[in-house]
């Protein structure tokens, strides 16, 4: 259900960002990881170069490698199957599969969730992109707020501790502050540096504390 709505929102947002129908559908078929797709069309709409836009989308997709790592231990897929299974390694399939008690249940969970979401995501993307054309001015309908609202909803459960709040706060400052001075698409990449910066500052503080004891 939630995936269906995001797929629709993505189709609308992508069309509103100036991508054609085949481009929008190609993204959902080939990229198939929501946050990266939203980031890419947002960066392109803001006038970013294709490579800076793709870099932002890529870094958002890196988390899937860590899902894959845990999934490969649970599912133990034969090597020849892995290139086919890889496209379905996303937030939702990882969450469902890793919650299963046995390897067999994990494999079934992964296949069923992967197939269902892949079909749903692509179908709703198509509907959203077609709908956007029928709707006309997406701004008048407030649909330009859908993208950032999706980001916020994805972000909220990730922010639990002070470290995460500090990273998010610093990233907002960097992302907005650097916007007028750096080329489009680059400020988001610079904002990603908030993660190592905060980790480094925390590590330093902890070391100082221990020395003080």
């Amino acid at each position: 259900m939630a995936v269906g709505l995001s797929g629709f929102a993505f189709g609308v947002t992508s069309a509103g960002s100036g991508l054609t129908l085949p481009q929008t559908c190609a993204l959902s078929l080939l990229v198939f990881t929501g946050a990266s797709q939203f980031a890419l069309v947002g960066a392109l709409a803001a006038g970013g170069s294709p490579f800076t836009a793709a870099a932002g989308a890529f870094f958002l997709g890196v988390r899937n490698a860590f899902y894959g790592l845990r999934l490969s231990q649970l599912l133990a897929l034969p090597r020849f199957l892995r290139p086919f299974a890889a496209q379905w390694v996303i937030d939702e399939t990882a969450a469902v599969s890793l919650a299963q008690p046995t390897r067999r249940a994990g494999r079934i969970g992964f296949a069923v969730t992967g197939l269902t979401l892949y079909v749903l995501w692509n179908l709703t993307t198509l509907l959203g992109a077609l709908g956007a054309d029928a709707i006309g001015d997406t701004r008048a309908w407030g649909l330009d707020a859908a993208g950032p609202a999706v980001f916020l909803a994805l972000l909220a459960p990730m922010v639990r501790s002070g470290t995460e709040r500090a990273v998010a706060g610093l990233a907002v400052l960097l992302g907005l502050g650097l916007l007028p001075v750096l080329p489009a698409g680059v400020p988001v990449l610079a904002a990603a540096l908030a993660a190592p910066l905060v980790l480094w500052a925390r590590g330093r503080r902890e070391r100082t504390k221990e020395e003080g004891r």
Partner: protein
Amino acid sequence: MSTWIAIGVTALGCYVVKLLGLLVPAGVLDRPLVKRLAALVPVALLAALTAQQTFADGRMPVLDARAAGLASAALALLLRAPFLVVVATAVVVTAGVRALGA
């Protein structure tokens, strides 16, 4: 054309990281620092993207109806509303504020 380049590069990059996780032996990526960074980089990216797509038009900072929409989405998240409601709230409030001429 440049849009297709961006799509191609993103599709390839995102597919390779997905496959990498399934192929590399456990332990290579399984280090505390790498795991911490992998968890925190999406936080930084999503926070920056949310802010930019709410408070900027292109490269210029602006305060418009989207700010009201996102504030109401944040409120919906605090009230533990489902994903669907959060996004719908942002869209409806933004449209409403625009319709009122703000």
